[in-house]
């Protein structure tokens, strides 16, 4: 099962747990599994059917462009981190 690092601001939903082992072959499925374990997580990470614009998903150290469609392996590490921004505009 993949290891998900729970974002700090969502740890109130996971009882303070920093990492969770969850099933899923894609980031979408990983979030589904998280949601089943810790209800409310999906609404925080996603907006409609996609990841929130301000959230980046990192799988095995690389920021993914496929986002929810990104494949996740059995031993993958998944992080949700704030998207890096340069400025507002």
């Amino acid at each position: 099962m993949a290891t998900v690092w729970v974002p700090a601001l969502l740890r109130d939903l996971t009882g303070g747990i920093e990492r969770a082992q969850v099933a899923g072959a894609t980031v979408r499925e990983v979030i589904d599994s998280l949601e089943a374990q810790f209800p409310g997580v999906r609404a925080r990470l996603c907006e409609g059917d996609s990841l929130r614009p301000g959230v980046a998903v990192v799988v095995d150290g690389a920021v993914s462009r496929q986002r929810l469609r990104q494949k996740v392996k059995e031993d993958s590490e998944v992080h949700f981190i704030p998207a890096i921004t340069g400025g507002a505009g």
Partner: protein
Amino acid sequence: MNEKETYRVIGTRPLRPDGADKVTGRALYGADLRLPGMLYGAVLRSPHAHARILSIDTSAAEALPGVKAVVTAADLPDVEAKVASLGEGSVNTRYQSWNILAREKALYYGHAVAVVAAASVHIAQEAVKLIRVNYEVLPPVLDVLQAMQADAPILLRDLRTDELGEKGSALTNVAAHHQTKKGDVERGFQEAAVTVEREFHTATVHQGYIEPQNATALYNQDGRITIWCSTQGSFGVRDQLKDILDVPVAQIKVVPMEIGGGFGGKNNVYLEPLAALLSKKSGHKPVRLTMNHADVLSATGPTSGSVIRVKMGARKDGRITAAQAWLAYEAGAFPGSPVTSGMGVIFGPYAIENVLLDGYDVVVNKPPAAAYRAPGGTNAAFAAEVVIDELAEKLGMDPLDLRLLNAAKEGDRKADGVAYGRIGCVEVLEAARNHPHYRAPLPGKFRGRGVAAGSWGNYGGKSSASASVNSDGSVNLVEGSVDIGGSRASISMQLAETLQIPVESIRPQVADTDTVGYTEGTYGSRTTFATGWAVYELGRRLIGLLCERAAQLWDVEPGQVTYEGGVFSCGGQRLSFAELAGKMDETGGAVVASVSVQPETWGPAFAAHIVDVEVDPETGKVDILRYTAVQDVGKAVHPAYVEGQIQGGVAQGVGWGLSEGYYYDAQGRLANASLLDYRMPTSLDLPAIETVIVEVPNPGHPYGVRGVGEVPIVPPPAAIANAIYRAVGVRLTTLPMSPARVLEALGKA
């Protein structure tokens, strides 16, 4: 794949392909373009930092002879809130439209309110003065801490604090709260033998590119819009225009002109949509808009001023046990400061078990922050690296030894839990410690030596390129990456390396959005990495095609043809690249290829800087005596331009540290909106800047390249502050460390 590779082109220092044009004055920058029938514009800007716009009367301006069009926010489509992906920056289109022309409220001094096109720039400037705007002046909020107060005047009528998808209930100026947490800082601080805690303030500063923003637009009768402008990313301009003007992307063509510096500040559009609207309204004439430096400073992207509190603790042996930071960054008038980038950088060079970071994105009545070289990183490193220096002092340790002891290595986890891949942090710190500068005696009173480290994550993103082989063996390369600092050279070199031909055989061209595939802008230290990767793929594809041609000539299978040392061969048959290129006609015509890549394996960059200063205790002036910048660049493709990036970043960092900063009066008017009063370093303010290139190849790039351009701006203010401390025994915690601040710290003001 690259540790032991020997290169023929990479690592050499050829002349840049666009060099002759640039030293003779022939190169065409945006303001050099002349089109028949061109009109010139001028912008009316708000004299108030915060004011409700009650009415705008443009009739007198419209009546002035020579005036062809006047545009206000009423002419802009009221775009829905949607976030356009701008790569390094994400932009809320509605706010961006509001920034282009103030609607309902002007939110900063210099906010554009109306714009005029006329037969000459002088007429346009006269017309602007005839526009009557009725303002209800509101109290401005200029300080990030003040803006966070519950009773602060509110800038935006719908802003509530976002905490990863959860919105606060009250209206506020705090657009977002971000948090990163690893381990348990409480426990970490309990384990510490020494702790240091300080608060830092950094001023709003500007990218300071010498060429002001400019844009020329032709809105054709058929609806096609052509924009010629000074931008870091032509496709980014196209994306923003499509949203702001609400037109299909196919209708827009963006032609990037030569660009006179950007440093992050020329990703966002300011003038382009206005020029397009004026062109449309003036009967489809081409319209040129240019800023002056007062406009540039007061109304284009500065980077955030900030308040940062840092607490760090270490055991007696120097091991850092916990690090905590609270970062509040000014976003300017609309949300979107680089505070998350600052959080990424703040303890980046170190492996620390327990970390807690809280970041706040806060709107204030200043221009919206735009990216600036390692956005948010310099502020953050200033805070952290001064605290580490103090830790070293309290522990009685050498400041570089302390850093080395805690340096991040492959497999160590950053604050956000993501593990580093192969990085060169240790190598950089070791190179600094072993550098003669670090050991050289520094005699004399009021002199001191400081060090600081810095990290930056870098970026990858989308790049495209295409190429065609000429019959003489030269290759025409078409790329979409705007060349701000010699990237035509570094990209051509990677193609030449791949093709195993001389770099002089490559003819690079930066193309418009109709001509080349989608390419993200020249930002995020991505161009040599990602566009370099694109031309690597391109080269391999061309070689594949040429192998097929050779196979045809020799009547063998393409797989039997090998290419090595610039020669195609099979059995006893041999043809050089140029010879085979000469036989294209007889083997099926032109050989062309195009590729698009989106690599995700950019490697982070690390830097360590050493600086000697002398402080004049009478005037408070700080002189830089000697400067050495050490940096891991992965692989230096064109070492001279790598050195140039490092030196340029250092120079900007020195300005940020010592002399640059926005001064607003109590009404929120920018008091130093000129290059005389916004003090960027001149050749007299800087010494020679020595560079030390460390090469720890990035395993995620065919030639080991890491981004180079951003990290050199991260350490300078901290290194200088640490040097000042060693020189005169006071810790400066506010930027810029101007003479007045130094005197104040010395108790003399």
